[in-house]
């Protein structure tokens, strides 16, 4: 006689629990990596600023911090990595491209919607953003617009007019469980005359 449904129940239960545990661990690991890496990145960033050249956050890393992005209103403070390969984005937002628009060079920073760039969903136009480079100079930006684009239809191109700004890109919708959706959430920030409270200029003045 065929093994009864009962006899199969226990192994099935164990299998299902194992699978669930494996998936759960995968999810937890992704978030742990994302959170832990920022600590190492902060260290690498500080020493990069001291030494004046890029420092790898850990010996076998294939990326390194190139900028610091802050949005004080939302308590966001991230070290931005070079490149946006899957490996880089697992550890922090990445500098995707630097475009030459009409008014100068645009920076495009991309991050994962469910780790570092989750805060983008609370961004409102008018919020202040700071971008610090390795040499310690800080550029001030103000969020100009927030929009959703379909990456199947549109490629990433800086506006053809106006001064050079900053684009922050992440996936959309924020709480979608499918990882490779076509929609992107794009925050466009334009240069603002504000001075960073900790910038050397304001300290001196």
């Amino acid at each position, binding site marked *: 006689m065929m093994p*009864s*449904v*009962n006899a199969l*129940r226990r192994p*099935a*239960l164990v299998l*299902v*629990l194992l*699978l*669930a*545990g494996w*998936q*759960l661990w*995968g*999810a937890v690991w*992704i978030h742990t990596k994302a959170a832990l890496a920022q600590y190492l990145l902060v260290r690498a960033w500080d020493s990069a600023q001291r030494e004046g050249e890029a420092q790898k956050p850990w010996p076998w890393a294939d990326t390194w911090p190139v900028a610091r992005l802050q949005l004080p209103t939302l308590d966001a403070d991230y070290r931005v990595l070079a490149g*946006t*390969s*899957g490996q880089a*984005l*697992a550890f922090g937002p990445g500098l*995707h491209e630097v*475009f*030459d*628009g*009409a008014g100068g060079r645009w920076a495009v920073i*991309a991050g*994962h*919607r*469910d*780790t570092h760039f989750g805060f983008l969903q609370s961004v409102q*136009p008018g919020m202040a953003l700071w971008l610090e480079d390795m040499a310690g100079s800080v550029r001030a930006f103000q969020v100009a617009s*927030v*929009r*959703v*684009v379909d*990456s*199947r*239809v*549109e*490629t*990433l*191109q*800086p*506006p*053809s007019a106006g001064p050079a700004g900053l*684009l922050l*890109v*992440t*996936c959309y*919708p*924020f*709480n*979608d*469980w*499918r*990882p*490779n959706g076509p929609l*992107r959430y*794009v925050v466009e920030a334009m240069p603002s005359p504000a001075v960073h409270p900790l910038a050397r200029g304001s300290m001196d003045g």
Partner: protein
Amino acid sequence: MMTIRPVHHFLAARTLLRLCFVLLPRLVALFLCGLLLNASIARADVGFEPGSGQLLLQRPGLPPEPALLQHSRFAVQIAGMVAVVRLQQTFENTSGDWAEGVYAFPLPGDAAVRHMEMRAGGRRIVGKVRERQEAQAIYQQAASSGRKASLVSQQRPNLFQNRIANVAPGETVSVELEFVQPVEFAQGRFSLRLPMTLTPRYIPGISLPRAENGAAEASYLAWHAATDQVPDAPLIAAWQHPRAGADALPLNPVDIAVELDAGLPLAQVDTPSHAMRLSREGSRYALQLARGPAEMDRDFVLRWTPATGSEPRAALFTEAVDGDHYGMLMVVPPALTQADTAIPRELVFVIDTSGSMGGVPLQQARHSLAAALDSLRPADHFNIIAFDHEYRSLFAKSRQAVPDALRQARRFVSKLEAGGGTEMLPPLQHALQQGLATTNERLRQVVFLTDGAVGNEQAIIDMIAVRIGASRLFTVGIGSAPNSWFLREAAALGRGRHLHVGESSEVSTQMDALVDYLAAPLLTDVRVDWPQAVAEAGGPLPDLYAGAPLIRSVHFNTPPQVGVIRVSGRLNGQPWRQELELGDSAQQPARGVGSLWARARIQALLDERYTGAREAVIRANVLAVALQHQLLSPYTSFVAVEEQVSRPTDVPLKPDAVRNTRPGGQSSQGFAYPQTATTASSKLFFACLLLFVALLFWVMRGPELDHVPDDAKR
């Protein structure tokens, strides 16, 4: 008939019933919970509202919708080995502003562009060839004074730019170009390739400050600013339509009509790239696109095969222009099978895995490479170098093609993925440098698989000229719109051959041809003796490979008289010669031979840079030829200006980049959006789902236990 015993019947029904009772509710529960989760996600989708109440799904920060729509029409006339092509580009201004169109477009790299005219509102203005800067000044002056004008300049031998000033709102202006192109003959088959779109070229180097580069006025019409390595980047980095095109509703429609007079009986005529309708009248064929205008997202390829027994052996095409006599000699070496000289070889495969190779192109490159690996002999040594913005080699130095090494190679090839920039110089330099360093008996061959999408072509060609040493370089152009001129030039300087893999179905035939070429050149120490004084256009005669003819353009100092042309060389190491009577049936008059001579002459003059000629000398010599023959060149442009003023000078002129279509099969790249979601959410989702299933199992366990004694009793 079988009878079902009641007991069994009853038992079966009972089991089924129990299964239904037990499983059905669970399935329903599962389905419901899946539905619930989906619904909550869907709600989250629409739950977002931007704070400022702005329109959400608006057009993003793209340049405004193109004001000018472009469509092209190619009228091709082929006679023997020469194709004369008339290309009409029509621009329609759909905006309410006066527009200036900037259109970057490709042409075959060996085309002699010899005529240009502009048509607007029934008027026809014939363009003139002028020195490049002078033409630019004439055009700028006309554009700012409100006159209609068109300026066609060469940015690369296969990349041109057409600027059309003062197109009125709603108006249509067209520009017609005429060019002459030699037909290609290889592997017993003639072919003509017309490029339709551009694969975006990777721009290496550091961006120059805007103020310095001087090309600021055109910079917003391109996606890249000038860099130290590619100072003219804004002129070659043309915008593309963000979405892919399709023949059903083309973004850049093209009409193609061909008249083919091969001059010999044909066995086959085919167009692998486009569906064409073919009609025949005697020895003349006429071809038209079968399904109306097509999308300009791939090269147009026409091939024709001579009937058995009528394959060309040798021919001289001649033309008299204004009392000058020109000729084009074609000699096909006999189709000998290669002497199977077992010279041990060292093959270095260099494969491009940059972003522009994403999609179908990389697949084709991988298949091509795999086929080439299969052709290796056990005595051969080989290595593979893959590159994007960095390069990595399979082995530190070439290894013998033993099964273990081949296995490693296949694994390496199957794991290649496209992404990143195209820093082509270092890997090629590395591949050639190793050849300079080793002094062994092996025949050293470098096979380069790429789409050639770089902006610093000249720097790479220069490097090859210097470092080629004893190696030979073979280039395999991959994809729907490869940079053919660059790859052919690289192979010519590398004393190898260039071939194309445009369709996945071509991989095996083209790789067979490559394997033939790789065996060894067939005809060496080639020389041509003319019965009278002639000026040959080209430089030294190249070695010939199996199935490829010798082509020479000449200018006869006196009208061609009776005599014998002697072609000699070493065929498979044995002395070989062929003779051709001037003035007999092998001599055929052909339109365009004069222009082809001038074009070949310009190329030969430009190639003098590799032997150390100064740029100023080259420029002066090229200018003289180009102006005399009214040809486009790196130093000359076509400009047409209308006499009458059409735009009132108080109305502004808006520049607009006419966009190209993305090459077919190529994945959206370069400026595509990155992947910005982890799999954490999906993992969490599945974990929850699985836990829920586990919970169901657990909950159902209680009541099920009651049935166990029942089962046990039976």
